[in-house]
């Protein structure tokens, strides 16, 4: 499943908890020209360093597809950060 929502929650020392919801699909659409350039740059780097471009693209795709369900939660005293991908 493609990741759809990135949730970031953070609380600074003495502050209140703030939430940031990032819908990934619209963001990817907005950034698609930059992503296209990044992919082209990556493919060029693959050719230079002798990495199979198709394998690299497939591996990257698998990595992105496996992201949903990942979450990191760090609390240190009153401060806290939570990053979750759904």
């Amino acid at each position: 499943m493609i990741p759809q929502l990135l949730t970031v929650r953070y609380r600074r020392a003495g502050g209140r908890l703030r939430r940031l919801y990032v819908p990934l699909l619209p963001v990817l659409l907005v950034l698609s020209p930059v992503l296209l350039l990044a992919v082209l740059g990556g493919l060029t780097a693959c050719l230079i360093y002798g990495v199979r471009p198709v394998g690299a693209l497939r591996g990257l795709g698998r990595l992105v597809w496996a992201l949903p369900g990942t979450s990191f939660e760090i609390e240190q005293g009153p401060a806290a950060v939570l990053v979750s991908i759904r």
Partner: protein
Amino acid sequence: MNEQRRQILQMLADGRITADEAERLIDAVQREGTEPVAGGTARPKVRPRYLRVVVNANDLVEGPSRINVRVPLQLLRAGVRLASLVPPQALHQVNAELHRSGVPIDLTQLKPQQLEELIEHLDEISVDIDSVDGKVQVFCE
């Protein structure tokens, strides 16, 4: 179960137990019969999907801290497959840096199949470390 019920009724008829006790025993036998029998009709083992790392620490200076990481095992598999694409010359450079840092690991000896097996058996891992300063748990769920 019928045999057990017959024995209970026989004990009641012999006067060894009262009617109330017989009723409770029969209820217990019926409950036992409705529960799944271990090993017989047990459900197939559900494969874990996530690797969890939970760290709880108590620091006297900075206060209590907590780290809770959940990583899909599928993500680890994908990472391992991606890592297998790293060219050999890059691995040699990484090896050199590792040796310089005092970590004698030869990454060129790690085959993708071995890493796959490692991930496959990761679901059986469970690490619990308890100390005065904190607790570390690594497990799959």
